[in-house]
């Protein structure tokens, strides 16, 4: 299909949630009011690591207006632990606390002020244990174990004859890189309302994966899936922070205890003590020939998953999957460990393990280029994977060549014609580049239902949560395209497990590809039904009928789709239903391999470094987004710009700081995120549309790639400007200044 044949696909149409959001009427979890609901307040542990000797909630319970206090003692007749891969997280702390801020108890009361007052009356006696709030201290042989040990997960793979290959290399490089703990700061903190009733649980929550929350609640409370309803209103930002199950089991248990609906609206501080990105330490050893040929790579990574596993298993795996980079090595040995520490549990965050891996591997690419005297772009091109290559042996080969994609970014940046102009002898400029491909972790399990009404309009049912990425609009565009009706005739219903069919999750840049296919198929199903009715009406074959502009036309005679529906039911009403099932055996044959697609990340940066203060100014940043086919180009750009800006945060200043397990900066005054003033002077996204994705119209996932390469591109640019190599993020002025000072000695 050529571009001209599309009606709405490929156009930057207005988001269908625009008016809701610009008018303030969009309902988020924080806006949900359920009649009779109580207000909850958590009782957090002040200590990062301690045994709980006793909890006395009698004073709190005696306070007028208090309905219930939930402690470990109340976790009876139910499963007590939850978690996506390892069910190691107690609903409230049991016997032991593993990070500062871990909920030890929770209060439900008539109003928030009463709940807050009661929370302060809960008396907890602790026996402090020594705390390890970073990788180094948690890995000490005599570190106090946080769980059975401090090792959470181990992962690795190998191919080739690594040791022999290293022995035959001209040069071997070994470097270690550090990536900090960072926080998503989705602007809506985790918020949840649960009504636990005798035969059902109703939940309104800011969750990205409502169906996984449903399954978790059903398991915990021994209910069937049909008894648990999870509604996700608009979500005020996700970026992974609201993936899997977070506060829902606690609120459900508290609602059961209180005998009424309970609302927990966390503060930003509480959410900063709920989830974060994994800090990482990655060591890469790379063997090369003098001509720049990459021969062997060995990587050892540690990721800090905090007090509980959360998504630590997958992140441990993903950093290893992504650290080899977009290059061909015949010999690879990769190993990674997830480590428990006494800090906020670490979960998903936009491209899990991706920024950590790329920070290491793409910084080292430039280190190698410098040492060999080879242009860093040429070194990359020499070793870059091509279409059909397996960057990870046994996994899906690359869908398209990377070199032309890199070139698009370089051209937009003006890389080849760059002329360096330093403003002064101590204020220097330079350019840097980085690229990677990341395996989407998406499972191909999505379903959609399309109802087609008797007036020619349609309602599309999706489980994809609207977290800002604009999926509702994209799904509407796909449905309108396939139903051959105007976009304005489409309504999208999302994220109520009682109403919409199953979708595994909203994450891993999966929705346009996988839910997009489900909606596409459901719409095609409806269209085929319409054509069958029309064929009967016109007494011809379905393939003789043209479907366009809401009408079926045969030999110059037309009938509206609505009229066809009415004719079928023989009256004024009725409706058609179309369904779309996406499994790995999808009819397209494009979903059989893992990963479902490779997401491409490319970035080029120009910086200006003030050597006297260490201040780095990002003058220009050109990013790339490779959606295969951009169904809504401005939204694709917006995803990429937002991802790159988040990366500017973790590259330049964002860092959660812990000292002996105490979280030092759990608020937005002391934890700084990017503002308007951090916009690079020039900030561009190149859209790459080669139609090489497995999704509808050759599309594939985007939204994570933009966050992957910013840090190494900036660090490479700083090196280009100053000759100083930084191996630890964030690149704060002090860190840069110290590195420059050290280089002078």
């Amino acid at each position, binding site marked *: 299909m050529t571009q001209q044949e599309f009606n709405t696909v490929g156009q930057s149409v207005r988001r269908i949630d625009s008016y809701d*959001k610009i008018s*303030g009427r969009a309902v988020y979890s924080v806006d949900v009011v359920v009649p009779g609901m109580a207000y909850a307040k958590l009782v957090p542990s002040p200590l990062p690591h301690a045994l709980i000797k006793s909890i006395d909630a009698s004073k709190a319970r005696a306070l007028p207006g208090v309905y219930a206090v939930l402690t470990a003692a109340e976790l009876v007749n139910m499963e007590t632990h939850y978690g996506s891969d390892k069910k190691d997280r107690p609903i409230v702390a049991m016997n032991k606390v593993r990070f500062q801020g871990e909920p030890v108890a929770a209060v439900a009361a008539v109003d928030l002020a009463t709940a807050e007052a009661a929370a302060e009356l809960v008396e907890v006696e602790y026996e402090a244990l020594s705390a390890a709030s970073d990788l180094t201290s948690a890995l000490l042989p005599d570190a106090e174990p946080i769980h059975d040990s401090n090792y959470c997960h181990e992962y690795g793979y190998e191919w080739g004859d690594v040791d022999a290959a290293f022995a035959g290399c001209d040069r071997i490089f070994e470097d270690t890189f550090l990536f900090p703990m960072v926080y998503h700061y989705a602007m809506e903190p985790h918020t949840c309302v649960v009504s636990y009733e005798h035969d059902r649980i109703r939940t309104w929550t800011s969750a990205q994966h409502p169906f996984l929350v449903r399954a978790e609640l059903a398991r915990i409370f021994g209910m069937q899936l049909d008894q648990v309803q999870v509604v996700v209103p608009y979500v005020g930002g996700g970026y992974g922070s609201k993936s899997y199950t977070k506060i829902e089991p606690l609120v459900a248990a508290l609602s059961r205890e209180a005998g009424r609906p309970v609302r927990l609206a966390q503060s930003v501080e509480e959410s900063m003590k709920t989830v974060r990105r994994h800090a990482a330490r990655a060591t890469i050893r790379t063997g090369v020939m003098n001509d720049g040929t990459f021969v062997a790579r060995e990587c050892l990574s540690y990721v800090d998953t905090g007090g509980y596993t959360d998504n630590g298993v997958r992140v441990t795996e993903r950093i290893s999957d992504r650290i080899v980079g977009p290059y061909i090595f015949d010999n690879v040995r990769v190993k990674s460990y997830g480590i428990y520490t006494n800090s906020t549990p670490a979960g998903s965050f936009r491209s899990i393990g991706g920024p950590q891996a790329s920070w290491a591997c793409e910084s080292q690419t430039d280190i190698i280029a410098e040492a060999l005297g080879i242009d860093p772009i040429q070194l990359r091109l020499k070793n870059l994977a091509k279409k059909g290559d397996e960057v990870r042996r046994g996994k899906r080969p690359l869908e398209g060549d990377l070199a032309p994609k890199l070139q698009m970014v370089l051209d937009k940046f003006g890389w080849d014609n760059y002329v360096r102009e330093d403003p002064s002898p101590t204020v220097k400029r330079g350019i840097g580049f980085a690229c990677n491909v990341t395996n989407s972790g998406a499972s191909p399990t999505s379903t959609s239902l399309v109802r087609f009404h008797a007036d020619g309009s349609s309602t599309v049912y999706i489980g994809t949560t609207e977290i800002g990425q604009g999926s509702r609009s994209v799904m509407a565009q796909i449905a309108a395209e396939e139903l051959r009706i105007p976009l304005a005739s489409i309504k999208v219903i999302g994220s109520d497990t009682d109403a919409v069919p199953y979708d595994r999750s909203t994450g891993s840049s999966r929705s346009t590809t996988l839910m997009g296919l489900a909606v596409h198929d459901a719409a095609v199903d409806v269209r085929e039904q319409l054509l069958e009715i029309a064929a009967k009406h016109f007494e011809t074959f379905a393939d003789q009928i043209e479907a366009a502009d809401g009408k079926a036309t045969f030999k110059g005679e037309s009938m509206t789709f609505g009229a066809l529906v009415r004719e079928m039911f023989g009256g004024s009403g009725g409706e058609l239903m179309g369904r779309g099932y996406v499994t790995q055996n999808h009819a397209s044959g494009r979903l059989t391999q893992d990963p479902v697609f490779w997401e491409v990340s490319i970035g080029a940066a120009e910086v200006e470094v003030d050597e006297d203060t260490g201040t780095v100014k990002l003058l220009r940043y050109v990013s790339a987004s490779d959606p295969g086919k951009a169904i809504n180009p401005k939204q694709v750009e*917006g995803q990429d710009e937002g*991802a790159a800006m988040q990366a500017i945060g973790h590259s330049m200043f964002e860092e959660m700081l812990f000292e002996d397990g105490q979280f030092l900066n759990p608020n937005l005054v002391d934890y700084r995120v990017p503002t308007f003033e951090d916009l690079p002077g020039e900030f561009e996204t190149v859209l790459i549309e080669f139609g090489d994705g497995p999704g509808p119209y050759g599309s594939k996932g985007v939204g994570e790639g933009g966050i992957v390469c910013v840090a190494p591109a900036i660090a490479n640019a700083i090196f280009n400007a100053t000759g100083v190599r930084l191996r630890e993020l964030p690149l704060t002025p002090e860190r840069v200044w110290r590195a420059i000072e050290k280089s002078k000695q």
Partner: protein
Amino acid sequence: MVQINQKITVAFNVNGGDVEIDVTPETALVDMLRDGLLLKGAKRSCDMQVCGACTVLVDGLPVSACTVPAFEVRGKSVTTIEGVAADDRMAGLTDAFIDNAAIQCGFCTPGMVLAAKSLLDRNPHPSEDEIKDYMRGNICRCTGYKKIVEAIQEAAQKAVQG
């Protein structure tokens, strides 16, 4: 000298209409608007006057409703996003946000629009740097800001042509 122990009556104008509501002294403006008047557009996020999600205009000036006490608006005019949305004269600004894809999750959007309105009220033709400077107190974690700058520029441009 007036002493208010528990209850204070706040009579003020909100989005063009006069209202009276009783609150306690410690009640934040955002809670009075959201819980008392069901104007849910203003959002509480950082709760420290950093993020701007709770921005409303008091006598035309943006403030952080998370921290400003409700009693401060006695006798004043408060504009919330609901008031902007109902005002046809504001369509140039709100349309510019929509058409430039300056909205993603939308949680910052009400505050962002009110801050932009306040900027354009004072400076109808802001430069890019002036936009970044004025808007630096409103955080958006989704868009990367570029499209919001473009939206404000377009709104200013349209107003000139208007």
